[in-house]
């Protein structure tokens, strides 16, 4: 007994080994639990995926029962304003195209509501640290409000320090930079949409100075789109665009709802104006033999 309990170095090693083995077995068992609800048998012998919840209706039935055009009201002060903004962002995220104008009308109605605008800015600040998709969405909504208080926040947002280091992918992308740049590009949309002297000056400054091409390119497009006199806007932009980035002024845009004829005419004109963008022929090597042996599953379930 005493011999067994004596803490020699080899015994410690043995104990640690047993502990690691036990951790491996317990961990694997926890992660490999079988489903509580059995599902239909798959055509292969491999286990099918499963769920703990019972099967529900098809999405078409769920969508048919979802109420439409019921944007939550944006009102209140302090905590109440925060709750209403949070509920509005929840709703806006799930909304579909036919509800787009509902949101625009609601946002237009709070242009002078400082409490609501402040609640949006707080939500963006919070979401920037926790949920990129929510931060992007909330920035879109704030930009659409076009409020002076919101403009102040957008100025600060586009001037947040741009990270120089971070998680670098093998291709050289720093994901912290991309995450911030996509949000700052959305903030630029809001500033350009304000379309006043100070906001325009900030957008033009970012065309020249922002470290990310994601933001510089957005600033070019957003400035151009929001100006009535396009030729004058192009002349102004030409003074700010970095050397080598002039082509971004002519970037081809497919606008939502644009028909093929309209886009294809723009493409033809673009390629004529910029023959240098036509790429070289791709280099071809040896083709792989075509297989036809993979199992073909049936069609996906009807929506």
């Amino acid at each position, binding site marked *: 007994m005493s011999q067994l309990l004596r803490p020699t170095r080899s015994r410690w090693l043995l104990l640690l080994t047993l502990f690691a083995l036990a951790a491996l077995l317990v961990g*694997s068992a926890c992660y490999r639990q079988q489903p509580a609800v059995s599902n239909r048998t798959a055509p292969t012998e491999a286990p099918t*995926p499963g769920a703990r919840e019972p099967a529900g209706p098809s999405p078409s039935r769920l969508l048919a029962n979802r109420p439409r055009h019921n944007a939550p009201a944006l009102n209140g002060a302090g905590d109440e304003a925060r709750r209403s903004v949070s509920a509005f962002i929840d709703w806006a995220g799930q909304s579909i195209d036919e509800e787009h104008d509902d949101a625009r009308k609601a946002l237009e109605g709070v242009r002078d509501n400082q409490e609501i605008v402040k609640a949006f800015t707080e939500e963006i600040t919070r979401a920037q640290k926790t949920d990129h998709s929510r931060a992007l969405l909330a920035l879109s909504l704030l930009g659409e409000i076009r409020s002076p208080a919101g403009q102040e926040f957008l100025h600060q947002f586009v001037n947040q320090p741009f990270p120089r280091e971070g998680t670098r992918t093998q291709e050289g992308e720093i994901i912290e930079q991309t995450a911030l740049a996509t949000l700052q590009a959305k903030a630029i949309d809001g500033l350009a949409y304000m379309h006043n002297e100070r906001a325009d000056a900030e957008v033009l400054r970012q065309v020249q100075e922002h470290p990310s091409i994601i933001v510089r390119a957005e600033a070019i497009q957003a400035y151009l789109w929001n100006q009535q006199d396009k030729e004058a806007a192009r002349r102004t932009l030409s003074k700010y665009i970095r050397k080598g980035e002039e082509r971004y002024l002519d970037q081809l845009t497919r606008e939502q709802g644009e028909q093929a004829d309209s886009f294809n005419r723009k493409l033809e004109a673009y390629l004529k104006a910029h023959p240098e963008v036509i790429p070289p022929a791709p280099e071809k090597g040896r083709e792989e033999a075509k297989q036809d042996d993979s199992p073909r599953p049936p069609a996906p379930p009807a929506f």
Partner: protein
Amino acid sequence: MNSKRTKVLCVMLWLICLSATAFGVCNQAQSSQAERDLWNEHGCWQDFFLWQYLAYGVRSGDWSNRGYFDACNVNLEYPKHWNASYLLTYKLNDNLAQSWHGTIDYRATAEAASSNFHNSIYHQATDDTSIYGAFNPPDQVQTSCLLYDNNKPSANNNPASRAGDYMHEGWHAWFRRYGYNGGGGSCGHFTGPQGACTMDPCGCDYFYFHGVGAYAFGAMWENNGTASRFHSPNQVQVEFLCDIADQSSAPASVKTAARADANARANGRFINGPGYRCGDPRPW
């Protein structure tokens, strides 16, 4: 004695490494708003994931600790994986006068079955956050925690960007099928920075501009060996994301994320860029 101790130490280290592999999963505590907004549309459609795992070559051994047996838990990787498949299978408008390509093209690129788009592939998740995804010949498509985790500063942990990566990696499989290596870089693309591409040291493509309607739906795989009828992996990804942003019935948060990803890629990943921009810059 020393050699015995060394052996025990080796075994112990091996077991610890093994358990680290078993536990090495992405963050499983949360999901993004875009994820949940899409998810709430179907509320966990079991018939769909029972089709999806076969269609995508999802194997229980690869995904068992990632929600394969808990497929209605939206915080786990496999539910997020099939949520992205749901997006590309059902939500595109397929408007020949406005869409770049159709569901038939995007499905064939992402799904496992051998076709004109590629030889058979299968999908796996990876904890390697030095990549968004990878195509490992001959048949493995990997998507990384950067596309799943909501606790990392990644802009791409949403169903649109994840499905966009299925396009990108699936198109590397197309390259292999038709004998293209994608450029001189070690990552299956051209080296950079080069031209308008800011990637460093690798990850640049050419954009092969084509009009709307230039490809019949189902014909995206076609090429004529010249730049006039060809796609690069980043281009297929941008066109897909753009179709989600502008030509789909996806929830607004998914479309917003898709547009941001498409435009970021269009502006920074093409030697002869920028590629197409999608949508106007009105904030909402």
